[in-house]
């Protein structure tokens, strides 16, 4: 079962390889041979969430998204949703 917590994902259609996310969050995002971002799998560690939010806001085409959890549906390209803290287990 995958963990809860916010996850980063890229809208590959909107992404134009500007590379700001790679500059701002090298802990989780690396560049492929053509300059496009490769995102480390799994939820974003708590201490990196503010940096992840900054990277999301910095993307010139709003292609980087921070979704609340693995099966959360985003509104779609162009609108980034901010992460919510994962709910405590019952």
């Amino acid at each position: 079962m995958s963990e809860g917590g916010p996850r980063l994902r890229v809208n590959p259609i909107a992404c134009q390889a500007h590379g700001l996310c790679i500059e701002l969050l090298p802990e989780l995002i690396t560049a492929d041979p053509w300059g496009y971002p490769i995102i480390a799998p799994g939820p974003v560690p708590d201490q990196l969430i503010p940096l992840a939010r900054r990277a999301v806001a910095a993307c010139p085409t709003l292609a980087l998204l921070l979704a609340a959890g693995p099966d959360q549906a985003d509104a779609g390209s162009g609108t980034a949703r901010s992460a919510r803290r994962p709910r405590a287990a019952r």
Partner: protein
Amino acid sequence: MSAPGLTAAEPGRPRPDGQVLRLLPAEGPHDLRAHLHRHGALPLREAGRLIEAVEQSGLTGRGGAAFPAGRKLRAVAEAAARASGRAGTVLVANGSESEPASSKDSVLLANAPHLVLDGIALAGAAVGAATSYLCVAEYRPELARAIAERAQAGLDAVPAQVSVTAPGYVSGQETALISALNGGLPLPTLVPPLPAQRGAHRRPTLVLNVETLAHIALIARYGPAWFRQAGTAQAPGTALVTIGGAVRAPGVYEIPLGVRLGELLAHAGLAGQPEAVLTGGYFGSWLPLPAALHAPVSAPGLREAGGALGPGVLAVLPGQCCGLAETARVLGYLARQAAGQCGPCSNGTPALAEAMNWIAFGRPRDDMIGWARQLTWLITGRGACHLPDGAAVLAASALEVFGEDVRAHARGGPCARASASPMLPIPTEPGSQGR
């Protein structure tokens, strides 16, 4: 009306023993009269019961993804209930068959169009569809005739509107179809939102393969227990498969899921000692022969054997062809067919095709083979659709199954078989997109 039972094999066209012909009529294409004679009137059940029946039957999508059809119906019905009071849902029957090696959907539409149209009517009623589309590669006269017959008989409350899919490999993809129906380009869009939540005309949209809808038309009449009489517990029912390559009787067969690959190919008349079979189409995987002959032909069965069922494509590699050459040609086709929307795919898939080209037709060094493997990892999961994933899976399976050939090519250049005439069809491409 009695359930369809055992039918005699057609002369000259052997079928696996014990097969129950459900979808394809043994005696030739059915017009409306013949269809009603065989299957009876359209049973317009109450919506909830059809969805439950489909869920109990265990029917999975026959378009390639093998997603449980009942779950899809349920999701769209629930989305429609949440958006209550608004314009209804949309049903899209996908008969585009963009996979070049598959012909089951066109055979089904030519021979039993009324089963498909029944499925559209029933599934549409179950999810409250106010609009129904039937997407096809080309608008054939048989289909026009079938729709005219139903219109004359006043059978369908919401008649299906025929839409011709744009040529091209990605045009038949679920979100690409919806994008085209919405007036946009026939290219895949980002998911989420899923079509079940927001699709054509911003309404919840149910997209099902035409064969899946035909099965639904039968489940509505004869029940889920009848459906489960064929097939296995994990993969119930029958399916249409397209068998090609080194067999004496290539074509579309209807099989009970779970039949052994060896048995099926034997009935299609396996020729010679082929070394591999392509399962699942251009998104699928090669399986080595004779090792894979024991594998059951079903989505879980083939997946366990390292292959895939996909839209039911089984292409046996003839002895005179080179598997690497076939793969290289298919990858070149996929690369040209890429939508060109996503950087990793538009860069990586052509690079992978070029690397495979070197391996198949040149004298590859180790770093070229390593680069090809790295590319399969680099492009997987990084596009809006699964074209790069499919290309990666195909390439990786070729490098594994034809490993001996790879080493032989590395030592002495391409084999003579690489220049044999191709087995796998590569369409000439007015449908090329991207660049």
